């Protein structure tokens, strides 16, 4: 268990900026100091604070999930055609390379489809493809459309974090995005739509109702694809009888285990299987568009298991899409869900082992308010324990990188590459968790030997690229404030260079813990 040297009551301004927020920018502390709770709550009152709007010119390069998935589908067709063309042109060579490569990992050699005509910059118009040499596959002249969309979404997320006031609502976005995670490692469709998923299914609801977020998440094409509901077919549905395909229980299990009730809360294997039947038909429309606009979320009655179904002792009458909606509405309000969500929120914002009283209060409020997430966020701010518990958690890699940018400057303009590389090196690659349970929320996971070594390397690299470093002592006052320890003050003051002083600030315990 990680316990910093000091156990005294933490500085309220540091609680506001680090425990709840994304870290102070120079000047922020003056705004926080008088009323840290009010500073945080002000964010909860701003309408649409969590939104990233496609109408905003700053986000013009983003796409909704449906056109993003369509672009990925079109690119996939192009890639396939290109492979076939190559195979026809040079049979011997192409056969060898195709055999060695798994289908998913086949590099794109075609010119990706432009998602928006307005977006095609001169550098991207490179129709002339060099012939690949027999030894190495050709490097694509433009990155695949999925990679471009992913980077644009990443840039938008970093920009939003950099510009946020306290960043409490952004922290809530990351919390929920990790709770309901999808992974770009699933394949091109999710890589193209992972950012859109967060903008469409998470952001609109972080201060809304849990049941609404749950519904938006579970019917989003990225989630349906990630947890394989796309492929799940009711065995007695028309499609099941015709095509000899059947159930896949992945989505059903993870909804119960991870998204709502929590593991060990009393559901059985029979409940999982039954819920999988209920969820059949929730799909993403395919490229042919037979079920609806390609890449959009649809209900496929042909794949839906007919008949009544029992889940957690309650019978859900046959009713097409409404059957799963009714089930989701019930489990969103289940007492086990309230307990599960309350525990995770308290663990995230207060301590790895949160005070039981905090969990109990949050769970009661969850139930009483019908899952009102704005009320829960406000209640977290009002918890006395949030202001008295020592800052023993670690900043997650994403939050650490954002805190560095907010303290030391935004980093390379319009290029999320460095931040994305840092995230991967720290073991938290963006929108690519190791499993559907998301990234760890325990301090130990991020205070590993390898992790700390890399944090040090990153602090140094970040400090080196700041062009005009002011006085590091002043930056320490601005970012950490009067509660900075004597040792940290001395270490920064005695640094051999401004770069080293800034690096020491960015790696200091007060900058790591929250």
């Amino acid at each position, binding site marked *: 268990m990680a316990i910093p040297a000091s156990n005294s009551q933490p500085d309220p301004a540091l609680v506001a900026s680090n425990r709840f927020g994304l870290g102070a920018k120079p000047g922020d502390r003056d705004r926080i100091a008088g009323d840290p709770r009010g500073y945080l709550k002000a964010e909860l009152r701003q309408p649409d604070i969590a939104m990233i709007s496609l109408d905003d010119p700053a986000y013009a390069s983003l796409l909704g999930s449906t056109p993003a998935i369509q672009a990925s589908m079109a690119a996939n067709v192009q890639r396939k055609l290109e492979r076939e063309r190559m195979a026809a042109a040079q049979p011997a060579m192409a056969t060898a390379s195709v055999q060695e490569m798994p289908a998913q*990992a086949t590099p794109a050699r075609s010119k990706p489809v432009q998602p928006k005509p307005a977006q095609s910059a001169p550098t991207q118009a490179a129709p002339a493809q060099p012939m690949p040499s027999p030894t190495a596959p050709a490097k694509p002249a433009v990155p695949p459309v999925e990679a471009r969309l992913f980077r644009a979404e990443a840039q938008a997320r970093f920009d939003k974090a950099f510009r946020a006031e306290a960043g409490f609502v952004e922290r809530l976005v990351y919390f929920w995005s990790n709770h309901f995670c999808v992974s770009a490692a699933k394949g091109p469709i999710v890589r193209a739509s992972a950012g859109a998923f967060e903008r469409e299914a998470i952001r609109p609801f972080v201060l809304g109702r849990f049941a609404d977020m749950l519904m938006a998440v579970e019917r989003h094409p990225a989630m349906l694809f990630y947890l394989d509901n796309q492929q799940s*077919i009711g065995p007695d549905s028309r499609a099941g009888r015709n095509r000899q395909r059947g159930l896949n229980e992945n989505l059903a299990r993870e909804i119960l285990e991870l998204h709502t009730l929590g*593991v060990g809360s009393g559901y059985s294997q029979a409940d999982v299987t039954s819920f999988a039947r209920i969820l059949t038909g929730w799909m993403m429309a395919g490229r042919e568009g037979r079920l609806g606009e390609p890449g959009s979320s649809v209900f496929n009655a042909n794949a839906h298991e007919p008949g009544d179904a029992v889940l957690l002792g309650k019978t859900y009458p046959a009713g097409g899409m409404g059957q799963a909606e009714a089930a989701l509405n019930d489990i969103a309000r289940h007492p086990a869900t309230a307990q599960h969500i309350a525990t995770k929120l308290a663990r995230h914002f207060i301590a790895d082992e949160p005070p039981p009283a905090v969990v109990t209060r949050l769970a009661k409020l969850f139930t009483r308010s019908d899952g009102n997430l704005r009320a829960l966020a406000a209640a977290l701010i009002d918890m006395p324990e949030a202001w008295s518990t020592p800052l023993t958690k670690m900043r997650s890699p994403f939050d650490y990188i954002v805190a560095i940018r907010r303290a030391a400057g935004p980093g390379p303009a319009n290029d999320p590459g460095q931040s994305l590389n840092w995230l991967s090196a720290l073991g938290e690659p963006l929108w690519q968790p*190791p499993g559907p349970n998301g990234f760890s929320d325990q301090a130990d996971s991020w205070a590993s*030997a*390898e992790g700390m070594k890399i944090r*040090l390397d990153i*602090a140094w690299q970040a400090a080196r690229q700041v062009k005009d470093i002011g006085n590091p002592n002043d930056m320490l006052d601005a970012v950490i404030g009067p509660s900075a320890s004597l040792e940290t003050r001395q270490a920064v003051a005695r640094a051999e260079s401004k770069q080293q002083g800034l690096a020491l600030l960015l790696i200091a315990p007060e900058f790591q813990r929250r």
Partner: protein
Amino acid sequence: MSLLCETPRPSRRAVLMTGGALFAWAYLPRFARAADNRDPRLIVIVLRGALDGLSAVGPVGDPDYAGLHGDIALSLTGPHAALPLDGFFAVNPAMPVFARLFKARQAAVVHAAATGYRERSHFDGQDVLESGYAGPGHVATGWLNRALESLPAGDRVATLGGLAVGPSTPLVIRGAAPVLGWAPQSLPPPAGDLAARVLDLYQHRDPVLAVALQKGLDADRMALDDQMVAKAIKPKGGLDSAAGMRQAAQGAAKLIAADDGPRVAALAFDGWDTHVNEGGATGRLATLLGGLDGAFEEFEKGLGERWKDTAIVAITEFGRTARINGTVGTDHGTGTVVLLAGGAIKGDRVIADWPGLKPAQLREQRDLAPTSDVRAVLKGLLADQFGLSAAVLGDKVFPESAAVKPMTNLVV
């Protein structure tokens, strides 16, 4: 098909029952082992996501196998024929190194194995597998770390500590015994004495971070000593990619081979949760198995003369359904395989009390029924390699597991 007639099925239980008596010397006290110049090492690879044991090592001699596993079942015929192990079992053709080691008596399989966990949650299942406790809910320390802690004070293996490969420490090796962390990475190291200054600051203000950072710096120094490794450790992919697995093993082998390097190591490879289009002899699972096979090869190469003293064990939280699901994949199940490799392994054996695949023989009519306990295998390795007693293994390393006897005769 003629191969199938050569191995009568009951022999598998016989293998298990007769071994112990012949090799009782494995339980001589440790100083006796030191006299034969052995310097044992144990490498644990956790396969997260639940490996389909029936597609990794297929019971091609079981008449019900092909029907249940459908299009993804392994077969001894066809363009991607599985590699026969003993006439009843065959390994996935993506694992030629493992097949070679098996024939060279340096690899073995325990089939129809499971931990004591009988639910189907990945995350609880992994916690049980890695913590070594009988049930979920224990996430502070892992069995491999407690094994180190249980060694006599001053024991060389305990002093040298463990190695955790990857950006975060797998639970299996977390705990009080010292653990080195290492992962392939390529950021420019800080100039001057920044690291020393930060360590000094941490020692005064945050001892936990001081210990972590010191270990991270140590590991980096060791791995970077060798110019060849330094060049090779540009990250090639995550630990859910074949290249990433191979690379992690390459770096780990370098650290473990060193005379003063750790004697136990833990790696975690992700991506085994194959619900959809799992593939059989080719495809997604085969690509991952190829990565694991590459890791075995890198360990064999990198450990050099220490390979002969090394045992590698690959374990997973549970198996997958025996029957393929509606999407040509498999859902969460129970029994699966444990893969063993290394010069210290008494190889050329598939150890299994085969439960059969008829509907009534399957657990809950869906999963391969477990007949071996993964903990028995792990206990056997810890006993043979490091001389831990059954009592310590049944109490401290794997709490409340006295009834699970160490599997004997796993090590040469």
